[in-house]
């Protein structure tokens, strides 16, 4: 293995993002789906920081990752609040049960 390449980080980021995306699609537990979203956001952050490490002209990648973290925190809070309201309504955390608009 020759030194550290940005490609290694991007490959790792791709795989983590895909695991998150597949988890979001496959699992039916809303908690696990929210965690999968967090995985995807983390993977994107890793790619941003890795590219910024290669091109050091400015640090916009770090700034972007900072904002992504802020938005992810807000998203987790709102998502879990909606999950609690849904649980109160249906007594379940299965996303297949969220079919009130269907009928």
């Amino acid at each position, binding site marked *: 293995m020759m030194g550290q390449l940005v490609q290694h980080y991007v490959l790792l980021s791709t*795989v983590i993002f895909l695991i*998150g995306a597949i*988890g979001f699609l496959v699992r039916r537990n809303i908690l*696990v789906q929210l965690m999968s979203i967090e995985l995807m956001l983390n993977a994107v952050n890793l790619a941003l920081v890795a590219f910024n490490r290669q091109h050091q002209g400015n640090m916009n990648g770090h*700034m972007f990752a900072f904002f992504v973290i802020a938005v992810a925190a807000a*998203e987790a809070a709102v998502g*879990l609040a909606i999950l609690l309201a849904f649980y109160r309504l249906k007594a379940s*955390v299965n996303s297949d049960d969220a079919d009130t608009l269907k009928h």
Partner: protein
Amino acid sequence: MSVGSLFFSVCALVALVGAVSTVAAKNPIRSAVGLLATIVAIAALFLKLAAQFLAAIQLIVYAGAVVVLFVFVIMLLGPDATTGERPARLRLSRWGGAVLLAAITGAALFVMRKGFGPLVPLGPVRADFGSTEAVGGLVFRGGLVPFEIATALLIVAVVGAIAVARSKPQPKKPRAEGHETRRLFAGPLHPRDAERPLPKESAR
């Protein structure tokens, strides 16, 4: 293998194992622990990429706040946090997911070997690259408006989360009002009598 490569390999392995266990674990608390492992490993990779500030933020916000919030919700739900998944559909989609993962990872590997230009190792890093000072200066000079919008977003998210997650107030019991004799003559004695039709004069 150099120390840096070894560090990267260990962190990548921990991150991947954590990600897979997040997605595959039946019990959500194990998912949360897997997410925590991935987050800590990515924070270590941030350190390796000379992003000290982001590594600290990652640990504080993700490991300290988001994962703890998840664990709180799992504890609040108790045994209901685990859902029984439907096995037949799940098996099919699991295989589909594995095939998709392999295909896109293969494509990414191919692009990495062929189409990414020459493979250049990461060079030396600037002295102040990724420090709190540098990122803070950039955020407050170049990204002040997005920063303020992000603060507003966080406030709205907190208020909205409280409003959505708060339980509805219980309906109050009808309160006894006024003096007892007044209550006797003012209307029906019992709330259920208010629904009944009044007895007719001829029926007596």
